[in-house]
């Protein structure tokens, strides 16, 4: 680059000699990294090429390029289908509930842990609360099915209080509560680590000064700890916004059944059923593309809003 600035009339040639020199000098680095570069080209950019299917009447025999262009027909079909509204509502609502309940949970846990003076107790709580993060969602969902069955543990306990047995897992009205609740159970401890780390970087003299000014623990939490965590909170919030329209199918797929589709079926599970199981590839590619484009826009939006109001940003 600097070569180009020194010889403005030879900038093009200068660029190519720089590249040639770079390739020669770093020959072994590039050869060594070839599998990695290939991996990204094939397994990340390859599927992006496959997105063309969204605009084609795809058939396996003709291949992606050979299939006929149909423009936005798949998208129109999707927007006009009777399940569009349901899928969108379910996807957005699960995310809204997660934003309201699951997002603040690790922040609150970190604040509570920060107030603990006994190191042993704090360490114990941390160790225990991180644990569920490492248990597979298959096991977590399996335990839920067992505990929440008609005659499972939870209904047995409710029975002691004279409450009639509730078929939690097969009732659509319970799905979102259970999905978000079990997510908090599994993730709250692990999620708190990053906030605890943020708290740890706060300058202790700030607390001393606040104490001098007569601030109690509540005031210190409100005016020192929370503002200190704010950059981290905002970054995590932006990332959450980006996934607003992408409820992962993995856990829903385990938890739902046709009985609960009304509240549980989200865009990604729909793509799985119609695409992988019913091999309707072109259409579901379009649905998936719609999903990721909206997600991407939300991420950029959240980032630029945050940049404007608080100077904290992802990029």
């Amino acid at each position, binding site marked *: 680059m600097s070569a180009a600035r020194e010889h403005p009339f030879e900038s093009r040639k200068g660029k190519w000699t720089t590249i040639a020199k770079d390739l020669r000098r770093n020959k072994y680095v590039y050869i060594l990294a070839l599998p990695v570069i290939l991996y990204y080209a094939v397994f990340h950019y390859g599927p992006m090429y496959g997105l063309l299917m969204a605009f084609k009447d795809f058939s396996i025999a003709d291949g992606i390029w050979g299939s006929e262009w149909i423009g936005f027909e798949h998208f129109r079909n999707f927007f006009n289908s009777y399940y569009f509204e349901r899928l969108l509502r379910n996807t957005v609502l699960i995310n809204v509930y997660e934003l309201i309940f699951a997002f603040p949970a690790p922040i609150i846990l970190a604040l509570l842990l920060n107030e603990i003076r006994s190191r042993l107790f704090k360490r114990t709580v941390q160790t225990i*609360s991180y*644990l569920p993060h490492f248990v597979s969602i298959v096991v977590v969902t399996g335990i839920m099915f067992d505990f929440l069955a008609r005659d499972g543990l939870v209904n047995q306990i409710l029975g002691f209080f004279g409450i009639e047995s509730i078929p939690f897992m097969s009732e659509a009205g319970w799905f979102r509560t259970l999905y978000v609740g079990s997510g908090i159970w599994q993730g709250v401890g692990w999620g708190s680590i990053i906030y605890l780390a943020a708290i740890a970087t706060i300058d202790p003299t700030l607390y001393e000064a606040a104490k001098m000014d007569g601030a109690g623990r509540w005031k210190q939490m409100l005016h020192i700890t929370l503002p200190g965590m704010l950059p981290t909170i905002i970054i995590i919030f932006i990332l959450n916004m980006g996934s607003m329209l992408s409820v992962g199918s*993995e856990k829903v797929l385990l938890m739902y059944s046709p009985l609960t589709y009304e509240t549980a079926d989200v865009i990604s599970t729909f793509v799985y059923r119609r695409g992988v199981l019913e091999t309707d590839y072109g259409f579901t590619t379009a649905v998936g593309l719609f999903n990721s484009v909206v997600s991407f826009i939300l991420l950029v939006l959240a980032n630029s809003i945050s940049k404007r109001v608080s100077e904290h940003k992802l990029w």
Partner: protein
Amino acid sequence: MANKRTAGETIFVWFNALILTGLCFVTLYPFVYVAFASFSDPASLAQHRGLLFTPLDINFEAYKAVFNNPMITTGYRNTLIYVAAGTAINLVATAIGAYLLSRRNLYFKNLLMMLIVITMFFGGGLIPTYLLINNLGMLNTIWAMLIPGMIGTFNMIIMRTAFQSVPISLEESAKIDGANDLIILFRIIIPLSMPVIAVMILWYAVGHWNSYFGALIYLRDRELFPLQLVLREILITNTTDNMMTEASGDRMAIADTIKYATIIVSTLPILLLYPFLQKYFVKGVLIGAIKE
């Protein structure tokens, strides 16, 4: 504490301790219940109502059934293979990628970095990926378990940050001694980045151990199923089938203890290793956070 507490603060301290103790109970108890139930006599367990605080009429029949179930033993073997081979591939590929991105004098450094970061926020999605794997002939082979997730981009960026903190003078003196990139990476940079490497091994291994979705999409042959997919059938698919046919979530007594034993057998390796590995996991999260 030297400072005097106000009454409100004292109440808060106790209330806080109470909440956190409650959280620990709610987190741990399900595992405790499952463990006790797995050692219980199926008939006694079926009669029992409410929480368990000890196994009922200790009995190991469920574990015998689990270890004699060929689906579970095959699944266990497959999972061990996927974890070992998968983690090895992950590690080598991630380290090479991180090495590439950590070079200071690459002409294409920024372009490569940008192209890689884009994939963290945008991708082809499920169906194009599925068709790609199909076209590559990987469907229903072990490769579908190992190759498509070869590199976790976030992990690679974390590792790059660690590699960049290795003093450049070490590399330069090695180069003067005639070391090539392979030697610099494997003899100098990786040995000096062991804490990060340890974190990566753990993350990747746990990821392989717990994943079921890739196997669900890409594998048809039951002989290739990993443990989690077998677990899904035992714990969940059966239950939903019952739910559909009987329109209720009634459980069968004998099958129950087997379920619990299956959960224990499949989760035990992680539960046992966890206390020793915890500090590495936590370290990993923090390395990731420093990146910002």
